């Protein structure tokens, strides 16, 4: 969970998850998560050294799209995953967006030649 101290890992790493339907897991008395809280959790998880992979539901990633797309470090790896109610859409994936950008810049360069 966000705000938690580093867990001793002994040379192994953690997988963090930022997903929706948290209320479904922990009962109905959890307040609705704000975008600010999601941003803070994302920033925290991407700055911790004991986390290797951050799984983020694509629906939640769309709420902080500017943060997710701006992230380009190799570790921790940010992976957008589908959720129960929101299937995966490759058009919104940040990794594939970079691929599209690369090909679009290549095509522009070809036209200029």
């Amino acid at each position, binding site marked *: 969970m966000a705000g938690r101290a580093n867990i001793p890992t002994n040379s*192994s790493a953690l997988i963090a998850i930022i997903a929706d339907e948290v209320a479904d897991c922990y009962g109905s008395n959890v307040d609705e998560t704000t975008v600010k809280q999601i941003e803070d959790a994302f920033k925290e998880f991407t700055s911790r050294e004991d986390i290797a992979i951050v799984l983020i539901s694509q629906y939640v990633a769309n709420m902080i799209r500017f943060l997710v797309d701006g992230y*380009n470090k*190799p570790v921790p*790896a940010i992976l957008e995953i*589908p959720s129960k109610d929101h*299937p*995966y859409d*490759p058009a919104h994936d940040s990794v594939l967006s*970079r*691929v599209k950008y690369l090909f679009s810049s290549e095509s522009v360069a070809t036209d200029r030649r």
Partner: protein
Amino acid sequence: MAAVAASAAAEEPRLLGSVPGAEDAVESDGAVGEEGRARGDDDEEILRFMDSVDGYLVLMDSLSSALRQGWLDLASARHSMGPSRVSSTLFNHKEQTASTKLQVVDHAEVEPSESKPLFTLSKWRLQEESASNNDDPVQTGNKPKLRHRGSATNPEDGNLARDSITAESLTCADTSNHVQRARSKALSVFGGLVSPKLRTAQISFETALELIVGLANSRSNILASSSQIKQ
């Protein structure tokens, strides 16, 4: 490659003598050859990049299927066992030792110019089990040999081959038993007798975890290739 071009350029004047412009022609051919080889390397990198992207899309599709199946089976198990028996309130939220571990090897420590982390998954403490088995002083030659009926003149090589195959199958059986025990132990939090759907959900989510690690590696390849192409 530059050395080959230089040596070719050095040899040519001996054959042609003092022909004016011959050396310049050879040098320009060498330059064109180097440019061709560079373009070949770029093409290789682009192909590698596109393979990584294709692999990423295939893995993502597989992950979607695995998760969907897992959620369906979990809902089915909750329906048959009752919501009180399949609930996160049963989880122990204290820190505990993980049976499946994730490790990252970052090649940037070896070659700072290339940051391409490699993610590996060790499921159900299998690496620790195999390490403890390898520590045993028993070697292939010292293992008790199986008795074979029939001819007393069995060739030693045949015995050793049979023993190694038997040892391998025993190791695979041990691993399989270990994994089954670990899976049952993980499900024991839901009670002694659990729905078969819960077991299949567990396997689906286990598969999803492997796919996630594969996706992380694929992402790492894509980022490394794209930075190479941009250069």
